């Protein structure tokens, strides 16, 4: 019976609910903008990782290497795009 119980998925589900509540608290608590954004960003990335690994089974097939290469590549592109945009549109504007 123990082998049949999807322990990882249930724990993952609870953890993702906790992350959702944490993100929701930003709205209800009176946090500063910087702190609120930090909480949102951190919970968002944890949540995305959790969904990919636990519920979309990213690391469980023989395509593990391909899938993670794609995810990391996407992450790099996303970060370059966001920080490049900030650089060009805000930090670098004269």
């Amino acid at each position, binding site marked *: 019976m123990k082998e049949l119980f999807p322990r990882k998925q249930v724990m993952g589900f609870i953890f993702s609910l906790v992350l959702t509540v944490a993100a929701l608290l930003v709205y209800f608590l009176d946090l500063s903008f910087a702190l609120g954004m930090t909480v949102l960003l951190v919970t968002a990335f944890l949540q995305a990782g959790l969904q990919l690994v636990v519920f979309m089974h990213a690391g469980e097939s023989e*395509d593990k290497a391909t899938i993670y290469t794609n995810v990391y590549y996407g992450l790099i592109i996303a970060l370059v795009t966001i920080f490049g*945009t900030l650089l060009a549109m805000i930090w670098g504007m*004269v």
Partner: protein
Amino acid sequence: MEFFERFAIPHPSPAIYASMVAIGLTVIAIIAGLTYFKKWGYIWREWLTTVDHKRIGIMYLISALLMLFRGGVDAIMMRSQLAVPGNTLLDAQHYNEIFTTHGIVMILFMAMPFIIALMNFVVPLQIGARDVAFPRLNALSFWLFFFAAMLFNISFVVGGSPDAGWTSYFPLAGNEHSPHVGTNYYMIAIQIAGLGTLMTGINFIVTILKMRAPGMTLMKMPMFTWSALITNVIIVFAFPVLTIALAMGTMDRLFGTHFFSIDNGGMDMLWANLFWVWGHPEVYILILPAFGIYSEVISTFARRNLYGYKSMVASMVIISLFSFLVWVHHFFTMGQGAFVNSIFSVTTMAIAVPTGIKIFNWLFTLWKGKIVMTTPMLYSMLFIPIFTIGGVTGVMLGMSAADYQYHNTMFLVAHFHLVIIPGVVFAMLAGLTYWWPKMFGFMLNERIGKWAAWLIAVGTCVAFFPMFISGLDGQARRMYTYSEATGFGFWNMLSFIGAGILAIGFVLIVYNIYYSTRYATRDIGADPWDARTLEWATHSPVPEYNFAITPEVNSSEALWDEKKKGHKLFKGSYQEIHMPSKSGVPFIMSAIFFVFGFAMIFSLWILAIVSLLGIFACLIHRSFEQDHGYHISVKEIEETEAKMGGAKG
């Protein structure tokens, strides 16, 4: 009556009424023709519901050629208007609409489907697969693109075309400065086509990673397949940015949000930024498959294996990453400081290095090769010098300090046409001529083909070289007229003559297709070019299952190995083949998307909601559908193979 007023053209002219009549007559002619020859069933069974990658490829090809002529007519009208100073052939509004649609049609509805056409047709054959990974999704991709293209094209006669440039910069593209529905067409039609492209990207990545023939490791893939893989990776990472930007633009225009407005916390420059975050990778989405085609053509007709296979692959991987690091060079003059511009200037110049590696690899492949100057090879040889001129002027534009001089002048227009025409159009025409016998079972006439190639090359040079000079003299792009005192008249007349030569070249290509269909011999065998890769190992035209026996491969030139080194491609005997079944749902769903898009463009909310429900109904239908495909028996395979000229292998 008031309801119908929204569909009126805000700026009518005799040319538009003429095209209304022409569109109406064409539709009537098609319907009458299909009915008279009793072809409705044939069209539905064999084409509209097909999921065969080869037929979808051919449909992409036909659409791309049609759009090439639509965009070409726009170009001719622009050059005619500018041919002499103070011309009144077109007025300002009309000219704005024409350069806008010329850009969008040529990039998104001609170049994109053209590369996707060749990828669709060639990639599964080159890797020895039966079809793409998701054949039904492939059909959906095509029909979404097709209906988006149709939606975009009716803008000319219903409601007015977009007129804010193919880049559609805000605030000009906002409601305040572009009040009529033209820019809605831009936002929605490109969105729908983009969905199709994104699906193609995913489909081909999976196909290439999962469906290669036994023995074909990644580093044993033919170069065109490698270029297709890298291209689709760029598509999957770049197109979502366009999707989001268009969605934000649509909300600004239809629902009064303020993402790109100049007041209420909006930022108009963010549109330009997001557009080019997608737009620059898009350049490489267009050019990399072209590089793949040149690699195939040059090694086939130099009768040598491709020089520097590994460095070719490495340079493409580097290009795919670098293509995401350079986008700011499209707006050096928008106000960011010298520090930001320097960073993007350096990354821009860095990307010339992997591109240069590829050029040298082709030259080294030619070195000591036994060159056969066929039409595809002629295009490849014409490509190298013209593309290099376009590329070098690109490095000039990439220097951010100097760019303040060149920005938004005809110099820029000359640069990107001299990159895109030899880079994409020559490659597509080379690929078309090269793979034509595989698609249709006969070859295009070489003599007419070479005439067309030379005319197009000369026309390109005559049309665009003068723009370098008039651009440096200060002629701005997108100006609908100029005075005689500017002295631009001579150079623009020269460009007009060049455009005429180009037009004759393209007409010759159409004539060549007609001539060869009528007179060319059908007795050409499976491998008329003496080529090297797997697609030439099956019959021409290709049977629906591609290969009767799955080939086994041990290098990137499997067919050459079989011909020269005694490698055995087809081992074993015929087995029953499992094939995907046809479906009309992709066509129907895309047609509903067309209605949805139209309703959104004209803010017809009830129709929009009803058609959206229709789209969801199609999705639900697909989710609950039981579809196990069908099987081709050994007996049928034997019959087909015997009919096609004896069993292979």
